[in-house]
């Protein structure tokens, strides 16, 4: 038991992580980020990473669209276990990590964005959490992984179930769950949640979202190099509720405003739908030469929802339900994006094992057909290189790019 506790010391876990990410693949070497906002985000990420490995820190594992404002209100560091997969993808050691999962009998048919974090935990690279907060978003695979990780670390697991239906009952249901979760966190951390703490987190979240939405508005009429990608990164980081995130979004908006003065929208615009590789990835580099890629997820209606400062839990509940991959709601939302952002084609990135993406594929294809948009579906794997090489899809990408021209 003592040995186990020593093995779970965060200082040991930090050294394990450094060994893993210190060995990057040569092709992952990239020039430094061009945008100031990107550099700021990198610094914030480095800071939170270092903080999360300190023994005294409160670390809460969260799933991708968890209402992180609650974690910030408790001064906990939300650790989005899935988002670390992109970092893992750049490591030369990725095969060893995935092999660990296979040795533990996890199927290779599971999405590598989930196998990766599981392997990181098996390799003892993640900081031991104080608490695990999970909801069934964006998929139940992730919520199961987080839940089981809580069992592995023997820490409290506090789940949320986000229903698919939006009505008064479902909103009340989610609010009640959040209230219960907060009461459990109070017990766990031994502090009562001060109303000011939650209010501050909500204010930071709203400030960030306001800048986030304003930046998106600029994309409607301008091609802004790197901006859509940065929005995508901010979305994936899900650091809403932190003051630093509001600052990143503000800087991004200011930079986008500056860029918009010099550059008008040019070229064909396509929307990248689904998981995206890192910016330096050969596939993105290749496509970027021909088309202007706009990322889908940051444009979701849910991102723009301003939280009600008087009833924050209710608006968080509303936002959470909007984040569900409901095909009909997404159809309406995607149609709005097509019209607003002048989208002429879809690239549907179907990551091996992502059933949600596969499940909404028919809707996206039907939508593209009805709007006479070109679309390309590519089956790729951005973490497990055994499942993907660029050559497998290059012909199809070329054909799509020719159509776009």
């Amino acid at each position, binding site marked *: 038991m003592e040995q186990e506790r020593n093995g779970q010391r965060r200082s040991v876990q930090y050294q394990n992580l450094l060994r893993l990410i210190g060995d990057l693949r040569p092709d992952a070497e990239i020039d430094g980020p061009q945008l100031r906002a990107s550099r700021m985000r990198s610094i914030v990420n480095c800071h939170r990473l270092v903080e999360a490995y300190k023994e005294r820190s409160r670390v809460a594992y969260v799933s991708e669209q968890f209402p992180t404002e609650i974690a910030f209100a408790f001064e906990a560091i939300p650790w989005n276990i899935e988002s670390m997969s992109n970092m893992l993808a750049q490591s030369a050691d990725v095969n060893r990590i995935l092999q660990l999962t296979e040795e533990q009998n*996890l199927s290779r048919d*599971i999405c590598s964005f989930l196998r990766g974090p599981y392997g990181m935990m098996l390799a003892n690279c993640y900081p031991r959490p104080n608490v695990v907060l999970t909801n069934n978003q964006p998929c139940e695979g992730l919520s199961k992984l987080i*839940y*089981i990780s809580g*069992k592995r670390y023997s820490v409290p697991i506090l789940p949320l179930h986000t229903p698919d239906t939006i009505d008064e009952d479902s909103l009340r249901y989610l609010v009640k769950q959040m209230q219960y979760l907060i009461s459990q966190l109070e017990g766990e951390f031994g502090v009562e949640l001060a109303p000011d703490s939650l209010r501050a987190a909500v204010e930071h979240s709203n400030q960030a979202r306001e800048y986030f939405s304003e930046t998106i508005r600029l994309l409607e009429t301008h091609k802004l190099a790197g901006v859509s990608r940065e929005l995508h990164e901010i979305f994936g980081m899900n650091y809403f509720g932190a003051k630093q995130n509001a600052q990143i979004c503000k800087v991004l908006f200011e930079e986008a405003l500056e860029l918009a003065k010099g550059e008008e929208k040019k070229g064909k615009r396509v929307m990248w739908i689904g998981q995206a590789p890192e910016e330096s990835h050969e596939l993105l580099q290749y496509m970027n030469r021909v088309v202007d890629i706009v990322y889908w997820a940051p444009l979701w209606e849910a991102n723009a929802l301003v939280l009600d400062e008087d009833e924050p839990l209710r608006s968080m509940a509303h936002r959470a339900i909007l984040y569900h991959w409901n095909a009909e709601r997404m159809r309406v939302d995607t149609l709005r994006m097509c019209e607003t952002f002048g989208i002429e084609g879809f690239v549907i990135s179907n990551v091996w*094992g992502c059933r949600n993406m596969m*499940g909404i594929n028919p809707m996206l294809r039907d939508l593209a057909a009805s709007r006479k948009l070109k679309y390309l579906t590519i089956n790729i794997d951005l973490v497990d290189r055994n499942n993907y090489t660029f050559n497998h899809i290059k012909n199809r990408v070329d054909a799509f790019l020719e159509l776009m021209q």
Partner: protein
Amino acid sequence: MRGEDTIRQAIRGIVDLYRNRFDLWKAADSPKIGWVSIQTPEEIFLAAGLIPLRITGELESSATDACARLGNNYCSYLLSCFSEGLAGVYDFADGVIFADACDMRKKLWEAWTRDIPSMTTYFLDLPCYVSAISKEYFAQRLRKLITEMEHRYGRKISEEALREAIDICNRSRTLMQRLYRYKKGGRQVLTGGESIQVVKAATTGLKEHFNRKMSALLEALAAAEPPPAPRKGHRVMICGSYFDQQGIIDAIENGGAALVCEDISNGVKYFEGQIDPDAEPVTAIADYYLEKYTSARRLEIDVRIQHILDLVQEYQVDSVIYYSIKFCDTNLHDYPYVLERLREAKIPVLSIESERNVTNLASIRTRIQTFLESRMF
């Protein structure tokens, strides 16, 4: 000998109920509604005067159309169901209800709604963990479903009708539980394949027929001279995804082992427990379906594991076969943890991944034979 004949005849009668289900459904005047997950509260549809029938996805030999729409890397059971829908197999039914029993079922609901507009579809939010709050919410959803049914069929679903439906379904459960007591006691009344056929007969929605035939079987069993106690063979339990693959059952039973318990939706999971007949009906239905919920989609994995361990004890199971349909994410995610816990309890486990049409049966058979032989002899 005569008693044995009566028993076999009674079993055939139940199995035939399933085999002849389409003729029986088409002959029945009542409207029909399909379902795909055992968390669907059949009681509500029975109370509305409908026949709630399970879609089993076993009639279409190819799921090409469904794959073209939803993709190849998808649960093949659900693809088969969708394929039947696309082929019009259930055109005689009014609609289909999809409980949110996994992400892929939710996507199946959306695809069905879009691609088979002739059928009305319904969606039922199903909490992924159990608490007082989630039970209350599930009961609210059931009340909404009742209102939808009342509007659709223009009739009031009274408390009395709900109580009557609960009574009919509880009776089915009791009869199934009584039958499975023989399995627990070591008297192998049914083969593994027949057990699954009997449970499938219960899911046809023809509850009164089923209850009559089950009562006849149980009476025949009670009246017959108990056969001499068989030599205790190797007792196997299967758990995991949707399962009805006779080839796999044959591989177990032809090797000399007995499939004594099926911890699956076509097995004990379907008929466990009882709905409280004295409580307010909707609350009682909601409580029942959430409390007995031990499928892989439920978050609290220890509840599932405890349930497996309880069954191992009740049915005196010697080894467990963990069956997962390829791409069934919830079962695949659970497997490492389940394996770890069962190994701690010193229960041998064999994991099998396969598809609806079991194209890899030969290799599965070899694995089962190797797994069992080393434990039986």
